[in-house]
Structures are given as structure tokens and as C-alpha cells.
């Protein structure tokens, strides 16, 4: 007899992996200098590139300043030529009159290079500051491109969060709470939290963020972040990564256990995210460099291009199961109604982080068509149904 099992659709994939190949591209904001070579081992805090920050061009209306007509020819009035360096406050152009003090000279408001002179105006490119690009993760350089980017690879734990705020942070992981449902409070942030990446539980308070800033914490990982709090801290001093999303959702047991396992290890976290189609989300990377050395080949991140199947690990992304991770135990052949009234295709999930009585009663009500046509592997009874649209695959 041929065993036939239903499969689900392709699900969005979110990385929660204790050990995987990780590839990170580091990009300079503009063309610059790459300071490392292919094959070189780098540390997270090591500089791998340097470039000038984006230059600001200031256009000066010299004609207006010197009380000339709008399209006045400045060639006989301007004291500098294109390409010359000018200091802030240095005289740029002056009108020569019969009475020398009658006309004020036009001075440069900024230090920079004179890049263009037109009729009545001149443009100065501001002095640029140098920007150093850090490796962000410990690993080895596998590629560099066009004085612009560096590819670094390593083996390690990789967790993608639902959303984040702030920039990047590097430091050893430290558990701030003992339970994944706890809220990180100021009391949990002790003096030895300085320079660490602190792991909270479900959420955190504004006071905890302020306390963490005082203590010099390098980053915080929590289950979720309240949207109202998010608005209060648009650009915190350190990154905050929320694993499950908005609200007050306990961190999934899988992630909490993983982070606790790696307590003390150096982690790199990024709270940056791009909206829209860019699909870039905050990440936590814990390089396991000693393992990388022992492996000749590093496998890149696994990309799931298979349809969802029974026993796949998934995470629910909407209420009432938002943030809970578990395993697909059965796939329904027909759309099933949910409390909102929608009837949708989906699967029954055994969530790992909550008690779920698995019914031993295999009798199925004749009215429950969905249950009657299920392709099951287990007796699932009261296992929750989640539509495919509200699931993402994890691994």
C-alpha cells in the first residue's frame, strides 16, 4: 500500500538554528578601502573597511550675499578656484568698491572643497569624516568586492528576530531573567551586565532600557516589545531584538533554551531592519569559531524550498498562538473554520512550549468535516489548528 501524505504550501522561513553556516556581507556606505584579504580570519570588533561618510554639498548664493544680480559672473570676484580647499569662515568672494568697507565679503560657512562655480553661486563639498566598518562576526573572509563590501563566513547559532530597533552590538551573552515569560526589569540589570548582550524574557520596561543604557549594556534580546515602548525609543543607544513580535509575548522555549545554552559566549546582534520588500530582519549570531576551524567546508544557511510537511518545525505569527513554536502533526485536506469566521487551509500544531492534552479519543464527530478528512499521524484531538498564512517555518 502506498503511503500518501498531504503536504502544505511553501512557508516563509525564519532561522532559529543552534548551528549553521552563516554568511554576512558587510558593506561600506560608499567606495572606500577594504582592510582585509580573502582567507583572513577576523574578529567581530576588527575593522575590515574604511570609507568617507557621505559628503554634503552646500550651494552658496554668492550673488545674493554680495547684492549682485542673480546670474552675475563671479570670475572676477571669487578668490578661489575649483578644487581649492576652503576653511570655515575663510573669504570666498568679495566685491571691490570705491569704499573698501562698504561691501562685506562672502565667507564660507563650512570647511570643504570648492567643487563648482556658476553664475551667482558656488558649491562646496563638506569635509567628510572617515567611517570604519567592523567585521560584526568572528569568522573568515571569503570575498571582497569593488572596494565596497566584504563577505565573512562562520559557523554558529543564528536566530532571526521579528523586529528590532537600534544598530549593532557585540558582547558576551548574559541571562537577565530565569524564565522566558519574565519581564526584564531594572533589578535584573546588575553591574556586571556592562558590555554584555542581555537576554530578557517576554518583554522589558522603559526603566529597564534606561538602566541598561546607564550600565553600558551592548544589546538586549527579548521575546517581544510593546509598540508604545517602541515609539518612545526610536533610536536607543544599543540594539534591542524582539524575537516574537509586538506585545508581551514570552520568548519561545526553543530560543530561550538556545540562548541560555550559549550564555557567556560572544554574540553579535543587529536591531536594524528594512521595511517593504527588502525583507531584512534583525539577527542574533553566536559564532562557534572553534568548530569552524575543525570543518573543511562550511554549509551555507539552509534554504527551505520544500512544501511544508508533517514533523516540520513551525512558528505561529498571529494571535492566539503568536510566538509559539511547534511541530506540524497533521495537515488538513480542506479549509477549516477559525474563530474569526474565515475558513482556511492549514495544519494542526503540537506547540512545544505549552501543555496540550492529546486526546486518546479517536472518534470524530460527523459534523466536523475538517477533522474527518485529516491526514493524521498522531491522534491530535484538541491540538490547535493554525492556517498556513499564519505560520512560518523555523530551523
Amino acid at each position, binding site marked *: 500500500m502506498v503511503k500518501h501524505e498531504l503536504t502544505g504550501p511553501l512557508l516563509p522561513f525564519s532561522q532559529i538554528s543552534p548551528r549553521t553556516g552563516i554568511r554576512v556581507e558587510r558593506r561600506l556606505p560608499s567606495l572606500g578601502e577594504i582592510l582585509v584579504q580573502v582567507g583572513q580570519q577576523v574578529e567581530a570588533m576588527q575593522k575590515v573597511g574604511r570609507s568617507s561618510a557621505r559628503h554634503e554639498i552646500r550651494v552658496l548664493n554668492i550673488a545674493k550675499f554680495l547684492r549682485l544680480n542673480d546670474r552675475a559672473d563671479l570670475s572676477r570676484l571669487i578668490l578661489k578656484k575649483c578644487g581649492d580647499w576652503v576653511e570655515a569662515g575663510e573669504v570666498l568672494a568679495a566685491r571691490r568698491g570705491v569704499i573698501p568697507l562698504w561691501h562685506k565679503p562672502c565667507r564660507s560657512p563650512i570647511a570643504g572643497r570648492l567643487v563648482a562655480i556658476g553664475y551667482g553661486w558656488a558649491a562646496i563639498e563638506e569635509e567628510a569624516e572617515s567611517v570604519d566598518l567592523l567585521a560584526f562576526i568572528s569568522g573568515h573572509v571569503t570575498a571582497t568586492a569593488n572596494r565596497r563590501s566584504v563577505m565573512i563566513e562562520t559557523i554558529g547559532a543564528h536566530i532571526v528576530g521579528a523586529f528590532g530597533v537600534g544598530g549593532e552590538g557585540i558582547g558576551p551573552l548574559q541571562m537577565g531573567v530565569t524564565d522566558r515569560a519574565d519581564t526584564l526589569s531594572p533589578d535584573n540589570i546588575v553591574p556586571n551586565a556592562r558590555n554584555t548582550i542581555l537576554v530578557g524574557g517576554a518583554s522589558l520596561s522603559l526603566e529597564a532600557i534606561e538602566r541598561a543604557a546607564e550600565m553600558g549594556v551592548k544589546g538586549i534580546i527579548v521575546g517581544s516589545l510593546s509598540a508604545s515602548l517602541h515609539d518612545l525609543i526610536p533610536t536607543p543607544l544599543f540594539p534591542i531584538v524582539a524575537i516574537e*513580535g*509586538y506585545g*508581551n509575548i514570552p520568548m519561545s522555549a526553543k530560543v530561550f533554551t538556545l540562548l541560555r545554552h550559549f550564555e557567556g559566549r560572544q554574540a553579535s546582534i543587529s536591531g536594524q531592519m528594512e521595511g517593504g520588500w527588502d525583507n531584512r530582519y534583525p539577527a542574533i549570531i553566536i559564532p562557534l569559531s572553534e568548530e569552524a576551524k575543525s570543518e573543511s567546508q562550511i554549509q551555507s544557511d539552509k534554504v527551505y524550498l520544500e512544501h511544508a510537511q508533517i514533523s516540520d518545525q513551525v512558528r505561529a505569527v498571529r*494571535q*492566539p498562538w503568536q510566538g509559539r513554536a511547534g511541530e506540524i502533526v497533521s495537515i488538513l485536506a480542506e479549509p477549516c473554520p477559525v474563530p*474569526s*469566521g*474565515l475558513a482556511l487551509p492549514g495544519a494542526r500544531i503540537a506547540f512545544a512550549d505549552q501543555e496540550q492534552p492529546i486526546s486518546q479519543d479517536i472518534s470524530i464527530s460527523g459534523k466536523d468535516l475538517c477533522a474527518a478528512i485529516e491526514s493524521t499521524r498522531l491522534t491530535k484531538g484538541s491540538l490547535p489548528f493554525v492556517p498556513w*498564512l499564519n505560520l512560518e517555518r523555523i530551523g
Partner: protein
Amino acid sequence: MGSASTSLAARAGDLFSLNTRSDLGIGLSTRMALSQIRLEQISRWLPFEITPSDLQNVLLSKSRYPTSVPQTRQDLLLECALAREIIRQAVAQAQPGWLPGGSHWLAHAPQWDLIVGVGRTLAQAPHPAYSVLMLLDAFEPVGVSQVALDHAGIASCLGALAEIHPLAAAEVVEHDAFLNLGTVVAPRGTTRRGEMALRVRVCYRDGRLVEEEVTYGSIRVIQLPPGERAALELRPGRRFDVGGGEPGLGVIAEAEGGILGIIIDARGRPLGLPADAAVRQRLLEEWMGSLGIGQEDERREVHTADG
């Protein structure tokens, strides 16, 4: 109304106006929508209490996972509430554009022959009554209007087809492109709650007659199955105008059937919501109940499904 943008296309005589807001949507653009719409504006459409923070959390979760669907009734009503406000924003922006070619009446008390809801939130709600309520609350149409949904998601394709083969597009629209929900009758005006707003006489093709007296502040549904037509005799109260041009003037109209039938929206125009939260929530639940999607209806359905 889509995940990233909301478009409002309107035609009245020679006037055609198209307004697209790429910053308003239920999904990808929810964050931008929330930066323009106050949370109280959204929560006033909810028949339950919710903190601003929880409201934001649910809606921003939708923005993080734009393809996700509301699994609970609460999430569904939250999305519907946001949808109302998004459309209201789009209408407020489009209304000045309706003035030049159209009439003053159109801009200030829109009398639409046909309103079509497009996009998943509108067209694929679990019950068509959710869609009708969203459209009525957002557009506040006056007079007699037909309401339909683009349940097959075909409207934009037909728009493209119309460019090269207008007749083919028109034929599809004429036959089965849209899901006809029914005919809405909405008088303009206000009075004290409980007073008579409109007397309706429905003359079915088979000779049957149904007479209803609808009080101000309520919604009533009269059966008229899809494909059927009926003559409507509308006699508004002295403070109400049902499209006749002045209050109290009777109107004869024709209603086309739909899956909901004839919906008498006697909540008045402009549509006002009580300031008291408890009263407002009870009223919202009552309106939903009139259309068969109240909390009690939902409970009964769940009970029936459970056997």
C-alpha cells in the same frame, strides 16, 4: 484596499477621479497608516475595550506579517476598524476632486449607484456583512446604492483589459465579475434615537409586499435574493432625505437583490457614534447583530459547528 496601498476610483457622469495612497494599507503600509490615523479613531469602531498599546501591537503584527490573516474575532474587528479609517482618509482626500466635474451634492453627501470593494480585507471577509459595514461606515453613502465585492480579485485585471478590449471587460462586469451583496438604502439626516427615519415598502415581482418602518439609529435587512429585483417605495421622516433632494420627499427606486438583500441603513448622515464607550460598543454590536455577525450569532455558529 491592499496591503501596501489604497486606491479610490470614482466615476460620476463625465467625472472620473482616481486617488492612490501608497502610504495607506492593511499590511505593509500599516505602520505608515498608524502614523496618520489616531488610535482613538480606530478604536471607536470596536465593540470591545482595548488599550492603545494592545491595539498597536495587533496592527503592527499585521504589518510585520502582511500576508497573515486574523484568526480571532478580535483581530478581525481590529483590521476592519483600521480599514474603515483608511478608506475614510482616502475619501477625505478624494472628495475635493469630486467637485469640479460633479455636483456639490456628490462631494458632500455622495450618492453612488454602485460601490465595489476590492482587496482581501474588503472582498474576502468571513461574512459579507463585515464588508458592507466597512463600506457604509467609510463612505457614508446617501440614497439608494448597490454594493458589490471583487471576491475573485479580478477588478485590476479588468481595468487592464478595458484598455485594449473595453467591450470584453464590460461584458465580464455585467455578468459575474463581482459578488452582488445587495442594495443599500441610506437616508440623510439626524433625529432622536428611536424616532422613525424611513418607511419602506418593497414590492416583489411575484406580487408580495413587505412594509417596514425603520427607526433612526438602526439597520434593517429585508430579503431579496441574488438575481431578483423589487420596486422600493421610500417615505422618509420629515428630517430625512433619501435622495429626493429635500427632507421628507418620497422616492420610488428599484432594488437589485444580493446575498444580503436590501439593507436599510437608518443610522443617519453624517454617521455619528456615541461618545460614551459602553453605549457605543453596545450599538456597534447591535448593528453587527442586525446583519447577522453579532457576537451572539458567532457563538451560535460555533455551537452548531461543535454539534
